């Protein structure tokens, strides 16, 4: 490993990453809040570092988290912004934030070096009443050069967004990959006795902050799935005792039925372009996979074996679908063309498989495996090779990839005692290497679905 930290994406791209952050305030604040403006800050007393290839890879950072000096940006909201940046960087497991006092002017790189730091942040927060201006600079401690300098201006209430964007810029510039901190997770909030839990569609920031309910819990509600192209969810509701898939527009709060199928419609996943949904519909003792075009609501049946075909998920290029089927006698994973036709079984480990999801990077399929009464969460290549179990438990299921494909969120449940005591259900995250599992502060919850990066 070399001793300097070089920027991995050009300054313009880093600025664009932040400037692309335009959205409208949505229904119950569920949409992404007001605009955020990013303007470059010129390098202070030091030449800009050269853009180049990644010097520290994600793989290296897993074993040796990058030490980064992160002084408090100030009191009040400035401290809160500092805390959110620090939590994002520390919780992903790839950085080790180091507290320090904010230097006057250019940092004392010598002392940072002696602390073992590789990178450092400086900056300040200017409270402009209804808006905030956050000046942020990222430094290479070894060379003393500024890697990034940007001033972000946004509505004061959007301070968390600014913090997540800054954490994403640090991640992107030091690791050469798009971060994922400025994103959300929709899920099912659960309460009440296990025999009849109240289920509400809910959404929170990816760090568990700002959680809110989207439905009132009147009906059993399951399996929300984010549209990768916009602020829309597909989910299953038992409204009026007719279990079916609905769409939920996060900007307007509007819900609409997705196709009027005679059977139970369930297990939705959007196509990568967000223009259609693939789902299952029960028929007789099995279930068929259909696609529904969202513009025309035209539907197309793509399996009809009579077996249970369910949990379909597209490859990121939209050409293939991985799904769960018991056509061979037990629930296993299969891959077929997105147009249907012959399917190839890809799961051959011990036990039953389910809930496959295709990574946005295309290289992995995450799944649940059930053997000997207990669950495992794993990944395999799309051809079924290289199966790796990431974590195990009484129940670990419903994996969902973060936008850059590096982390999975999933549902972890514990076994209940005879009277139901001891049952717990929550959302955890884990790196795709099986490293750094942690529980999200989402309370009693299940069925996570990770949003695309907030626009």
């Amino acid at each position, binding site marked *: 490993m070399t001793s300097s930290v070089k920027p991995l994406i050009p300054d313009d791209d880093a600025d664009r990453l932040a400037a692309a952050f335009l959205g409208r305030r949505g229904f119950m604040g569920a949409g992404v809040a007001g605009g955020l403006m990013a303007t470059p800050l010129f390098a202070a007393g030091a030449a800009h570092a050269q853009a180049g290839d990644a010097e520290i890879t994600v793989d290296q950072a897993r074993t040796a988290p990058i030490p980064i000096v992160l002084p408090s940006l100030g009191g009040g909201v400035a401290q809160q912004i500092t805390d959110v940046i620090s939590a994002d960087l520390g919780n992903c497991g790839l950085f080790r934030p180091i507290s320090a006092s904010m230097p006057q002017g250019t940092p004392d790189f010598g002392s940072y070096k002696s602390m073992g730091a590789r990178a450092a942040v400086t900056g300040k927060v200017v409270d402009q009443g209804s808006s905030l201006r956050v000046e942020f600079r990222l430094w290479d401690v070894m060379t003393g050069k500024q890697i990034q300098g940007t001033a972000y201006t946004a509505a004061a209430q959007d301070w968390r967004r600014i913090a997540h964007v800054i954490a994403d810029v640090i991640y992107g510039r030091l690791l050469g990959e798009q971060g994922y901190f400025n994103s959300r997770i929709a899920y099912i909030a659960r309460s009440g006795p296990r025999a*009849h839990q109240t289920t509400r569609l809910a959404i929170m920031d990816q760090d568990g902050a700002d959680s809110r309910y989207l439905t009132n819990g009147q009906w059993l509600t399951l399996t929300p799935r984010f549209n990768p192209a916009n602020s829309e969810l597909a989910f299953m509701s038992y409204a009026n005792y007719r279990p079916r898939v609905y769409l939920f527009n996060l900007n307007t709060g509007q819900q609409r039925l997705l196709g009027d199928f005679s059977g139970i419609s369930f297990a939705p996943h959007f196509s990568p372009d967000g223009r259609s949904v693939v789902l299952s519909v029960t028929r007789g003792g099995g279930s068929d996979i259909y696609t529904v075009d969202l513009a025309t609501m035209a539907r197309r049946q793509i399996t009809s074996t009579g077996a*249970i075909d369910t949990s379909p998920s597209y490859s990121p290029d939209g050409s293939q679908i991985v799904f769960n089927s018991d056509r061979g006698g037990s*629930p296993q994973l299969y891959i077929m063309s997105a147009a249907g036709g012959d399917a190839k079984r890809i799961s051959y480990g011990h036990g039953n498989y389910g809930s496959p999801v295709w990574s946005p990077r295309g290289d992995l399929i995450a799944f649940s495996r059930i053997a000997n009464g207990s669950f495992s969460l794993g990944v395999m290549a799309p051809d079924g090779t290289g199966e790796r179990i990431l974590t195990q438990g009484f129940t670990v299921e419903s994996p969902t990839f973060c936008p850059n494909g590096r982390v999975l969120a999933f549902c972890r449940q514990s076994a209940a005692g005879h009277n139901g005591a001891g049952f717990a259900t929550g959302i955890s995250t884990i790196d795709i290497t099986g490293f750094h599992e942690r529980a999200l502060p989402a309370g009693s919850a299940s069925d996570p679905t990770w949003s695309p990066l907030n626009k």
Partner: protein
Amino acid sequence: MKLKLLGAAGMALFLAACSDHANKNVNTGAATQQVGPAPGSEADLVATAGDRVLFAFNQNTLSSDAKATLDKQAAWLAKYPQVHVQIAGNCDDRGTEEYNIALGERRANAAHDYLVAKGVDASRITTISYGKDRPTAVGDDEASWAQNRNAITAVQ
């Protein structure tokens, strides 16, 4: 008091309104004023035929016990031709959420098809599946799971 004049059929409808879906306990408050459950009611179905059949892990095959219960349900339904039922399929929690929705429906469908084969008009029976989300027994042991792999018939 018009309710008194309605008789068994009216009582069945009244109870159906209380029993708004398959896995909810029936409000038998009205029925307790009689000797035994009201004829044609959910409680009557439970007492006369049994409201549920059980399945093996990841199976929808009807056991001889299950068939005996469904035979009694078919006879009971023949006696009360005005009664409609919903069969809810359920699963233990040793499968994934989505697969279990399909498996529960497959179990409900197995009971449905058996009742239809025994002469019950298909228009009187609807099916639904709750997957693993409405367990009868809340524990996580073999005895609880066996209870939770079921198809429950409820008067509508």
